[in-house]
């Protein structure tokens, strides 16, 4: 692991109902692809994209739900140590919007206090089938103190903006040193955390 590869590394986690386009957002952003009618993503844990912001290399590690949201069975450990959450719904699906409070409850329970949450209404390319008005979503996101954006993974609308804005905010927070990697962690963690991936003597 070479530190000089990047200046920042952030873990971004996607949540939201099945079928709202979480995987498409990630794929569009990381690979520039829109996979039509793709099935579950087999064998891919997270995707990486390194972006440059104001001359600094920011590595984004973007985690997808691995399908565990289908029957509301996301593991708590999925939320741990996320720096940002992208809470996604489908603007053409009222149900996916109605479920947002349930997702917020999970975030509240398991994610870090300092996690940045972004609300994303996806599929604006299907505007003629819209069921959730922009105004409702705005009001909701304001009440919950979330940043809000509408996107189309298909048309690539606002996808770059979503991730780049998020990266900027994460950098800002990191700079202000308010960003904590794990839940609360108010203490100056005595003893170092062992993270296998950073150790070289494993293989």
């Amino acid at each position, binding site marked *: *692991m*070479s*530190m000089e590869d990047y200046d920042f*590394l952030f*873990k971004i986690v996607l949540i939201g109902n*099945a079928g709202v386009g979480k995987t498409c957002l990630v*794929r569009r952003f990381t*690979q520039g*692809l829109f*996979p039509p009618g*793709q*099935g*579950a*993503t*087999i*064998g*891919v*844990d997270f*995707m*990486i994209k390194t972006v440059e912001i104001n001359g600094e290399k920011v590595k984004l*590690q973007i985690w997808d739900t*691995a399908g*565990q949201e*289908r*029957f*509301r*069975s996301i*593991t*708590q*450990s999925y939320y*741990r*140590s*996320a*720096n940002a959450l992208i809470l996604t719904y489908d603007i053409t699906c009222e149900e996916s919007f*109605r479920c947002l409070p*349930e997702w917020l*409850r999970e975030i*509240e*329970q398991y994610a870090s206090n300092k996690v940045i949450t972004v609300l994303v209404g996806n599929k604006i390319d299907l505007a003629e089938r819209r069921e959730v008005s922009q105004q*409702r979503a705005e*009001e*909701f996101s304001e*009440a919950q103190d979330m940043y809000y954006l509408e996107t189309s993974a298909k048309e690539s609308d606002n996808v770059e903006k979503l991730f780049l804005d998020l990266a900027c905010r994460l950098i800002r927070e*990191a700079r202000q040193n308010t*960003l904590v*990697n*794990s*839940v*609360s962690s*108010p*203490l100056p963690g*005595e*003893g170092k*955390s*062992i*993270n*296998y*991936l*950073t150790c070289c003597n*494993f293989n």
Partner: protein
Amino acid sequence: MADSLPTEFDVIIIGTGLPESILAAACSRSGQRVLHVDSRSYYGGNWASFTFSGLLSWLKECEQDSEAGDKSTVAWQNLIQDTEEAIALRRKDDSIQHVEVFCYASKDTGDSAEEIDVLQKNPSLVASSTLTKPLDSACLSEETHSDSTSPEMPAKDTPQHDGEILPEVTDREETQVKETDCGEKTCIHTVSDGAKDENKPVVEDNSGQPKRNRITYSQIVKEGRRFNIDLVSKLLYSQGSLIDLLIKSNVSRYAEFKNVTRILAFREGKVEQVPCSRADVFNSKELTMVEKRMLMKFLTFCLDYEQHPGEYQDFTQRPFSEYLKTQKLTPNLQHFILHSIAMTEPSCLTVDGLKATKHFLQCLGRYGNTPFLFPLYGQGEIPQCFCRMCAVFGGIYCLRHRVQCLVVDKESGRCEAVIDHFGQRISAKFFIVEDSYLSEDTCAGVQYGQISRAVLITDQSVLKADSDQQISMLTVPPAEPGARAVRVAELCSSTMTCMKDTYLVHLTCSSASTAREDLEPVVQKLFTPYAETEIDEGDPPKPRLLWALYFNMRDSSGVSRSSYHGLPSNVYVCSGPDCGLGNEHAVKLAETLFQQIFPGEDFCPPPPNPEDIIFDGDDKQPEAPGTNTLIVAKLEASEGSQNLDSPGQHLQ
């Protein structure tokens, strides 16, 4: 979530404890179509960790009438055909017994009056109301009983688990307080629900108490989210099978660990630190130079004792404790080695004692000064990590999904399918069932062990040190011959298992009686109940108990497959947690079953590194989710050999 579940799988796994979860990951990883279900609303079964309010809900569930409150299921009896027979599964887990809760922390309300339950209330209700409205309805229902003699916790309230399994939630405000004095302190049995922790930091209330922080019950409830309370208390040996498996399978990337910072011993009424590494021994202020030399000599011998059989051959059939007496070790050194390093029962034979000592020493130094690691957020994270690995490779997950029965084909004698609580039949080739799901009929001939557990929230460490962030492992030897040693793990708040200024203490032993009878004597030796006025208990003052829970957990780890009655050969049984300190039993069980089911298949091989994956330009569909083919194709040369960093770790 009206998503329909496929009806055909290769493997159906019932229960999300550690062995089942490892198996799920292994099966999915080797290309099997896996359905992994649990009737509970959380992962892990008896391996789970809970927030404080989650634990209170769990306690209620344990107390609940076994067959009650489950009427929404579809009868399965008429779904069985003539050529089939059914093996009913148990409706409710009864592996937890003798639950007793004591609250010592002050219950004075002050700021506790509103425990606001924002979103936890009832998701469906909340979801259907107007979303822009602030969700502020309070739901507080507290039932307080005080009775230090009653062996059973009162179970009157209907459970309100997390609202997701119950169709309705009634807003109640009922508080009954009956307090009895038991000696100087008041013991309160407490059942509280609707307790919702808030996000804001605790209002520190330590005015007038410069020495100790005053923690009230309402603070514990408010900060309840900070707790991750394990039902089983285990540690990972640095050179153990679970660590090896986590690393090999890359599941380690889903979790973080801390090294246990010290090994403690309890001798002559005092807690002492055990020097175990070479540096520890030499830096020890408690040991004399002679003792240091003796200890080093003996430990060095233990590292390759097999090379010197002459040294101990007269003792092979005699206890390790007797052998230690002949080794020119002072009594305190013998105590350290016997109880805190080898951690054996007094009857343990010399060879086993030497082997345990060697294992301990081999584990030293891999990650730190002690041989053990503890997962941040608790042991309950580990099964979930394996479940994620399973899901990443296509496994399907359903919590709150109850399997009513196994369907057996009369002619072949093999299990063909299960019927779930919707009355849906789901077929598979292999079935893996956790012991607690098997019915009384199936388990009629089974002899179970029991584990005694206590969970304490305390205000100070059992042994003060420069840093208050210590993770300690203490073995309290049996008070009398024939009794059991008690294992004590003390966790500080930086393990993410308890709130600031508290410690979470787990006590474990194999049961001789109820958990309270087994463990309370040790609790009394180490701690003193919280009292409003500071009583001078001498030097050093004992840590104070804020809250305590006792329970017995069934230990099915010693049950042989053949003692289950009438199970088809393609139904495999996983045991619940064993009493041991490590996780070797669970890993071995999972690996053994996996090899039985899929002989010759690789057990949890490493997955491709996500950073090495780039998608094919054509973006082909993955083949059926059962194949081992990945959608990915080639390695990206530039990042080919790179490892990952932990996210955000360079930020500080």
